[in-house]
């Protein structure tokens, strides 16, 4: 059973930060990932600091410049059903609705979804793997059908989030609060590959919290979509997921971001596919070529090569839906 801990439920961010600075603390938002990590012994904090009492971290609202601010403890259900999200950022609403199950969307929050721990079954299981301080990544030579195609380096997990690629595609920024104040990081740079930092999945320091995510004001002529393939029709992580956001003028693609999930330890930009689309008119033939380009640089492991045609097809399908 999970070891006991001290539990506190502050009502202000300042109090949360003081608790974190004291060390040994772990944040609790919806708890849907945290409780699993505590039971599995992946996290062994001496105190759990609940965010559910901090009102200022929750909610969705438009800012003066037309940007949309989503507080870190806003639930996935709230994101999926919010009228402004659905109307202006449909790809994000789709991604939120495709996460897990209704119960988990009611409970899971934006911040928790972006900061959830890897789902690699060796990491979550009773293996002293490299990520847990051992000297081997068991997935590399083992059962790696759910592992990465890109960016693997001594550790091969994939980022489990559906929201992350949708938000990176929208050029969202992460607003981080710490005792030194606020810092703003493009969400794309919020996540770390194992080669950048072996112990941490995000740039957050132990005494910082993700307070909110801000989406740029919607651009005229822009469109977005999120698609995901999973082993069953619901309640499952993405084998591959893709978020596409693009802006066109007179049919010509002027800006585009194609961001994959389920294929790397961070949301993964398919830059070759993006380059192919820029300055061209999107049609079925171009969508198919972009699908192939999206797999450029993939390094399949022994059991996950199926993800290559899967991601090609998924990118093609997503682009065709916008053509």
């Amino acid at each position, binding site marked *: 059973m999970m070891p006991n801990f001290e539990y506190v439920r502050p009502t202000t961010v300042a109090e949360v930060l003081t608790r974190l600075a004291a060390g040994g603390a772990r944040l609790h938002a919806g708890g849907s990932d945290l409780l*699993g990590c505590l*039971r599995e012994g992946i996290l062994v904090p001496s105190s759990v600091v609940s965010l559910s009492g901090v009102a200022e971290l929750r909610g969705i609202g438009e800012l003066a410049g037309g940007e949309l601010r989503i507080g870190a403890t806003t639930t996935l259900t709230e994101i999926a059903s919010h009228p402004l999200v659905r109307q202006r950022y449909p790809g994000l609403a789709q991604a939120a609705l495709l996460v897990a199950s209704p*119960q988990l969307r009611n409970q899971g929050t934006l911040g928790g979804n972006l900061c959830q721990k890897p789902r690699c079954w060796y990491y979550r299981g009773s293996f002293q793997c490299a990520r847990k301080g051992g000297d081997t990544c068991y997935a590399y030579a083992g059962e790696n059908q759910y592992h990465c195609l890109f960016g693997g380096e001594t550790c091969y997990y994939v980022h489990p989030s559906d929201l992350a690629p949708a938000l990176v595609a929208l050029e969202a920024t992460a607003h981080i609060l710490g005792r030194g104040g606020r810092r703003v990081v493009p969400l794309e740079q919020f996540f770390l590959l194992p080669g950048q930092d072996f112990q941490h999945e995000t740039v957050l320091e132990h005494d910082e919290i993700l307070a909110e995510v801000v989406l740029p004001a919607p651009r005229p002529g822009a469109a977005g979509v999120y698609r995901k393939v999973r082993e069953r029709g619901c309640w499952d992580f993405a084998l591959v997921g893709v978020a596409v956001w693009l802006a066109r003028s007179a049919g010509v693609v002027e800006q585009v971001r194609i961001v994959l999930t389920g294929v790397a330890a961070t949301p993964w930009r398919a830059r070759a596919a993006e380059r192919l689309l820029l300055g061209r008119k999107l049609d079925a033939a171009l969508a198919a070529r972009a699908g192939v380009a999206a797999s450029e640089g993939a390094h399949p492991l022994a059991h996950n090569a199926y993800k290559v045609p899967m991601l090609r097809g998924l990118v093609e399908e997503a682009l065709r839906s916008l053509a």
Partner: protein
Amino acid sequence: MAKKNERDTKRCHGGVTRRGFLASVGASTVGAVVASRAAAAPAQQRESLEGMVPCTLKINGRHHSLLVEPRWSLLYVLREELGLTGTKQGCERGECGACTVLVDGVARYACLTLALEVQGHAVTTVEGLVVDGQLSAVQQAFVAEDAFQCGYCTPGQVMAAEALLRANPAPSDEEIREGMSGNLCRCGAYDHIVKAVRRAAAARRAGGAR
């Protein structure tokens, strides 16, 4: 395996399980039992209560004051401390739905919820759907449509259906499948479950049914 023994001291004196004992005295006295255990504990025994904190829960309209360890899940407290065993334990990892309860009318997994987190909120379990001995519309519909075989998943299914119909009184079949997608049925009673939800929705809309 954090299965049944969330707590080390399950068996009480004389081989009576804590749960059996509580079931025999009824949940209403539980607060008093737990509190008096704390008050009566001699100094050195109080060690074992170290790490326990007071917790007030509102469950099925009734307030319970008890001592909990912060690590206890709502599922554990409902079943093992309060004797409300209608809520089932399956996977304990958010993968089966057997533990579904309502928190402020919204469905959530009790296995992934700390008991301390729902203080100040209204929890409804399957026991709370019965009013004056009358089953709710959803419960009646599950019986009428034979929407189960072994019945283990049923309380969770019923709570998911209850949450769905509160939010959406007239769901399409697709919305029913989506709304019920966080509950597995090992016996595969899915078609009957969809029919039961449809029937309950109609009964509630027709009025009179709760």
